[in-house]
């Protein structure tokens, strides 16, 4: 091993020097090609000879065969390595049927590759210095083999990187002030009092703000909360192992008799098998039974989509800098031998690549810069009808299905769909019965009398629900939770949301409390209700999505993003705020965790100011939640689709902020995350994207050639590029959708979303009552500002020629600081108080919105437009070049559609500008991110009063959504330097919440650089 390492090291340095030597040698294959060949042969040798490596070459289904090619753009290097039936060969020419090729733009990249860890290769991929062409799962397998060879070197490198990063931060971000972390914690100590009887729907809470409770009132929740921040998530193989075993035995594409499977039946059977055989676990001290995985905090694995992307990290995930998770040796073995090989050619991407001949739209997606089509991971992002489930029970729903089978006029496809729904509901019932059994077992072992009672109760509950209707709050919450675990076995845990739980659960709360007579009993019950909801919140944190390291740079710190919606108006249009609204808000305030993602609806005419003030107070205490949503604006936005008023009134947030007509709508509200700036860059470069260095777009005119005589001609060029990109993304969305129809139809969703049973169609086939998809379009402010700069400085005032502006941009403004200053100071940007700027933003949003609206999706639905950004404004920003707006290369875009902080010194101008956007173009919502600093001199009441004024004025002027960070830049800097003091510091990115210390550096800096406004 030692000699190999030193041999490898000296070869590495040889490679480095040789690379420098061959810089100009061009097409002739020279020394570099030879060295690459030697290195690959070394790898082949190792794997051909060493038993400790050879054992990885075989999986449960036999030899793992694959091939990888390596090529530089000028063809000075071309090699391939082939693993076939236990032998490894290196070839001088890449075979035609190679699985994947790594295209390197130049020899320098090869040098970088030689000296970086597989994790660092990510950066090369993101920056398009290395372009992957082919099967991404196979590349990860190759990475895994590389990491096996590098062994401990890889671990050591990562640990070193960790230490260096921490030391560097301490130096750069050290703040000379103490007490910042304490100030955040102190906020929880003071709680405002509310007033009784303000909200008509609140009947039982004397003080709806529930100030009498702090976290210390709930020791059980405190234990869960502390564990939450200290528990490392762990890879759980239960789901993939059980399901892959079932497929192996029963077939995936075809059944044991060679007949093609109806995908829905196949899924239903496989999931049923999983539900029957998974471990029924009741966590210690919990009031809710069941878990998403078999681990305390489990990382979920969906190998039919992107799970194979962590193949290369199986032995190193625990050591990575960002969001590490542990993976036991046994789990790694199972994934490598039993699971991943089965799926490496059988996943959404591969299906699309083969069936549609590696379409252009997929190639664009795999360059990371232009758009992300979420279906590569999953669909989810919708809300099941919990009301129907709680009222009927699964047996009731099965009854409806049987009725439909009897009396409906369904074709074979319909009958199979209905059968699938039945099967999976049966599986859920089995799981619940197993939980009941587990509860009984634990009762026997339990010595503490109170806990024994709780377990006895759990046994009763799980014997009853979800098969039968729920009658009490604890039955309802357990039913919801058990269904929820099943949903996350069927679907990736990415954005599936729980809906208006305050509305759905109020009847159970009322039924329970009405039976109690004394004030003391009722007070105790209210406390119990808060605790139960708290338990639900903590259960929601028992799973995190699988994030390959590259995802840490694209989706910093995101959890499963499960939204809960409270408040607003009833379907009939009346004030919906009720007791459970405030119970949920109390749990939100107490726990201050990133999941559930709480969205609070507010209707300016129907909801009380007291309710809005409470929402503001919770934002101050938690520093980042809940999100504020305006009912009027959202209702306006959704009305364009012709939905009935009572369904629109019942909208609920999904994932981050997007609207779903809860329980009746398959809405995939985040199907596409589109980089609007990419189109701007392409318009500036006649269809060429500078980072992708690819003439991917249509030819719309060259600035250098003076093709643009008017502003309108340039606007048209941008719009053309934008439409092109949208159409490509939509095409891929449809193709991936088709893959989902084959690989991951969703009978459980279908049973629980209205319409699918009556229509006899899985929701993936368009069976839901309402059927649409939603997008997020990132960079609205940056694109708008760029257009404004061009219009004002180039065409209206003629302060600079278009050519000169383009020249400056191409040099990242380095050689023209005066122009940069002019661009930043003399142009009336979006958010400056200028009406024309708002008009431009509206115009840009309309181009996007109208383009999506023309399209009908693979399942017959429309596409909605949103302008929030998750953390893509940072990811895409880091991959984008300089803009006419003065934004420099690699800088984050503004989050959501928040105006550039430099647009105005007066924050109110920002608010008015965003409120001035036409809601019709924003039918998938937006994110307006505001950072507020409470004044040390003000009382809590005064702070809340100021915040309330901003939010209410904003809503009254037509604003749709607003979300806060109530923390100073100083505190954030201190958190960067001393992350150990800030484990629980939560921030709002652009739609979702995350813990600041788990974010990548770029996102942290973006948050620090957001303009802050003092209260």
């Amino acid at each position, binding site marked *: 091993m030692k000699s190999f390492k030193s041999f490898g090291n000296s070869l590495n340095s040889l490679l480095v020097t040789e690379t420098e030597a061959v810089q100009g040698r061009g097409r002739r294959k020279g020394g570099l090609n030879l060295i690459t060949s030697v290195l690959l042969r070394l790898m082949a040798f190792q794997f051909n000879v060493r038993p400790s490596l050879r054992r990885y070459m075989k999986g449960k289904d036999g030899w793992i065969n694959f091939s990888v090619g390596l090529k530089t753009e000028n063809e000075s290097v071309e090699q391939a390595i082939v693993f076939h039936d236990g032998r490894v060969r290196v070839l001088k020419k890449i075979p035609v049927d190679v699985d994947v090729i790594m295209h390197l733009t130049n020899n320098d990249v090869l040098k970088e590759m030689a000296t970086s860890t597989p994790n660092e290769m990510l950066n090369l991929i993101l920056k398009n210095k290395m372009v992957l062409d082919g099967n991404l799962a196979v590349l990860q397998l190759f990475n895994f083999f590389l990491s096996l060879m590098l062994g401990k070197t890889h671990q050591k490198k990562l640990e070193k990187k960790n230490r260096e990063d921490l030391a560097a931060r301490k130096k750069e971000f050290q703040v000379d002030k103490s007490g910042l972390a304490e100030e955040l914690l102190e906020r929880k100590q003071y709680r405002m009092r509310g007033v009784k009887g303000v909200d008509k729907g609140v009947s039982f809470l004397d003080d709806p703000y529930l100030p009498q409770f702090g976290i210390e009132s709930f020791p059980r929740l405190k234990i869960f909360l502390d564990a939450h921040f200290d528990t490392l998530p762990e890879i759980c193989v239960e789901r993939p192992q059980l399901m892959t075993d079932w497929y192996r035995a029963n077939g995936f594409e075809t059944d044991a008799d060679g007949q093609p499977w109806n995908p829905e039946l196949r899924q239903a059977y496989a999931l049923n098998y999983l539900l029957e055989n998974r471990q029924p676990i009741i966590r210690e001290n919990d009031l809710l039974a069941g878990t998403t995985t078999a681990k305390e905090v489990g990382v979920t694995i969906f190998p039919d989509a992107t799970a194979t992307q962590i193949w290369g990290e199986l032995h190193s995930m625990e050591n990575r800098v960002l969001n590490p998770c542990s993976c036991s040796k046994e789990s790694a073995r199972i994934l490598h031998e039993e699971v991943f090989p089965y799926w490496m050619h059988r996943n959404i991407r591969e299906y699309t690549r083969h069936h549609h001949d590696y379409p252009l739209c997929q190639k664009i997606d795999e360059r990371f810069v232009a758009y992300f089509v979420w279906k590569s991971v999953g669909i989810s992002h919708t809300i099941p009808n919990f009301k129907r489930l709680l009222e009927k029970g699964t047996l009731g729903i099965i009854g409806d299905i049987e009725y439909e089978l009897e009396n409906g006029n369904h074709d074979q496809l319909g009958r199979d769909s209905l059968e699938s729904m039945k099967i999976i509901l049966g599986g859920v019932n089995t799981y619940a019965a197993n939980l009941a059994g587990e509860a009984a077992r634990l009762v026997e072992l339990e010595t503490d009398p109170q806990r024994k009672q709780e377990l006895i109760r759990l046994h009763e509950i799980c014997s009853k629900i979800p098969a039968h209707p729920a009658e009490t709050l604890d039955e309802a919450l357990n039913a919801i939770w058990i269904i929820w675990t099943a949903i996350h076995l069927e679907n990736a845990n990415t954005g599936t949301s729980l809906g208006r739980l305050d509305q759905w659960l109020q009847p159970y709360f009322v039924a329970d409390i009405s039976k109690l007579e004394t004030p003391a009993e009722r007070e105790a019950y209210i406390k119990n209700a808060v605790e139960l909801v708290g338990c639900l919140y903590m259960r929601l944190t028992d799973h995190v999505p699988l994030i390959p390291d590259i995802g840490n740079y694209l989706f910093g710190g995101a959890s499963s993003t499960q939204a809960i919606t409270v408040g607003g108006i009833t379907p009939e249009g009346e004030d919906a705020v009720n007791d459970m609204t405030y119970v949920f808000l109390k749990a939100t305030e107490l726990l201050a965790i990133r999941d559930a993602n709480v969205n609070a609806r507010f209707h300016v005419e129907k909801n009380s100011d007291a309710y809005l003030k409470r929402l503001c107070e919770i934002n101050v205490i938690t520093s980042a939640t809940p999100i504020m949503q305006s009912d009027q604006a959202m209702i306006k936005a959704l009305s364009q689709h012709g939905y009935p008023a009572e369904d629109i009134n019942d909208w609920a947030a999904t994932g981050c902020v997007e609207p779903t007509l809860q329980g009746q709508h398959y809405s995939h509200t985040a199907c596409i995350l589109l980089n609007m700036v990419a189109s701007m860059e392409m318009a500036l470069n006649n269809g060429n994207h500078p980072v992708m260095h690819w003439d991917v777009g249509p030819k719309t005119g060259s600035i250098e050639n003076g093709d643009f005589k008017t502003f309108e001609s340039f606007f048209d060029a941008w719009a053309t590029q934008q439409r092109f990109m949208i159409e490509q993304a939509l095409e891929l969305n449809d193709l991936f959708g088709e893959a989902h129809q084959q690989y991951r139809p969703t009978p459980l969703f279908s049973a629980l979303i209205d319409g699918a049973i009556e229509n006899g169609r899985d929701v993936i086939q368009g069976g839901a009552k309402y059927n649409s998809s939603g997008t997020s379009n990132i960079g609205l402010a940056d694109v708008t500002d760029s257009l404004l700069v061009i219009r004002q400085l180039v065409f209206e005032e003629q302060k600079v020629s278009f050519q000169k502006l383009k020249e400056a941009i191409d040099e990242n403004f380095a050689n023209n600081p005066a122009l940069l*200053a*002019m661009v930043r*100071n003399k142009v009336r940007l979006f958010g400056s108080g200028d009406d024309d700027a708002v008009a431009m933003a509206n115009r840009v949003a309309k181009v996007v919105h109208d383009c999506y609206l023309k399209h009908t999706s693979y399942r017959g639905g429309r596409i909605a437009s949103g302008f929030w950004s998750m953390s893509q404004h940072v990811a895409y920003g880091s991959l984008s070049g300089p803009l006419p707006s003065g934004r420099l290369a690699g800088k984050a875009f503004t989050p959501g559609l928040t105006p550039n902080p430099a647009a105005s010194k007066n924050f109110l101008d920002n608010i008015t500008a965003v409120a001035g956007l036409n809601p019709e173009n924003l039918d998938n919502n937006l994110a307006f991110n505001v950072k507020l600093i409470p004044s040390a001199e003000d009382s809590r009441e005064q702070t809340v009063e100021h915040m309330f004024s901003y939010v209410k004025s904003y809503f009254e002027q037509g604003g749709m959504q607003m979300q806060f960070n109530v923390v100073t830049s100083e505190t954030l800097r201190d958190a960067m330097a001393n992350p150990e003091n800030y484990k629980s510091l939560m921030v709002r990115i652009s739609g979702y919440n995350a813990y600041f210390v788990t974010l990548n550096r770029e996102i942290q800096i973006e948050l620090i650089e957001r303009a802050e406004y003092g209260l």
Partner: protein
Amino acid sequence: MSDSTLILEIKGNSLDDGPGIRSVVFFKGCPLSCLWCHNPESKRSGVEISFQGDECVACDTCLETCPLDALSRDHTFFIDRERCNLCFECVAECPSGALSRVGTEMSVDEVVDKVLKDKPFYDTSGGGVTFSGGEPVLPLEFLAQVLARLKNEGVHTLIETCGYFNLEKFREQIYPHVDSIFYDIKIIAEENHKRFCGRGNRLILRNFAALYRQSQNGGVEVLPRIPLIPGMTDTAANIDAIIRLFKELGVTKTHLLPYHPLWQEKNRQIGIAENEADNVELEKWIARDHVAQCKKRFQAAGIET
């Protein structure tokens, strides 16, 4: 005449200049000339030119533009104000705004239209518009017109004044359109007031007494505010004298405004060199415990701060 006047700035989203969310209109020009003024660019009535070194991108455009050769990196303040004739050509060309104009002519309509834009916020928060500066009462007829228009729109109005004005004219034209008056009380001893503020204080104190008595008889509310300046206003003698005055009039509430030295950088931007009092105390923020001590004295006398 009274159709336009020089405005320094209209600042939106202020939470510190009266109740609720407010816009603050800063007028240029003041009858007094207090040493510690934290808006020194507001003292003089005429238009001025400012240079902020931090903002400069060194593009040299201004050097090329100036017709009088009044700009130079060799000059301490960059602008040789003896040569400069305030043509502002350099300001027009300066891309970064490092060179800027101090004081812009605005008409009554322009001021009103600008502040009305934020009316939805005033309405929700119980805010409004505050007039400050400089001395807002100095352009009396202009102020009167703006106030009248705003009252007509239902906007809450507040003025921050030093009190040096003709009471009769004030009562006639300003008083009917003002909802609240913040009144500066600085130094009681006349000699010291002359020395540090440029004029005597008898008119100021007389006006204060009259307006305060009127406020107690159903008139516009008056809140006295005291800038705490080390060695000048925060002396035991001055504080006690102010307390005596307050007790005489029955004042029960005041605001204390702790000193800060940020005006010194502003002075440099408009080309003024010296810290005229040569007081080293004025280089830093006033000590917190010192402010606390002053507060205690007032509280002991039954006056809320």
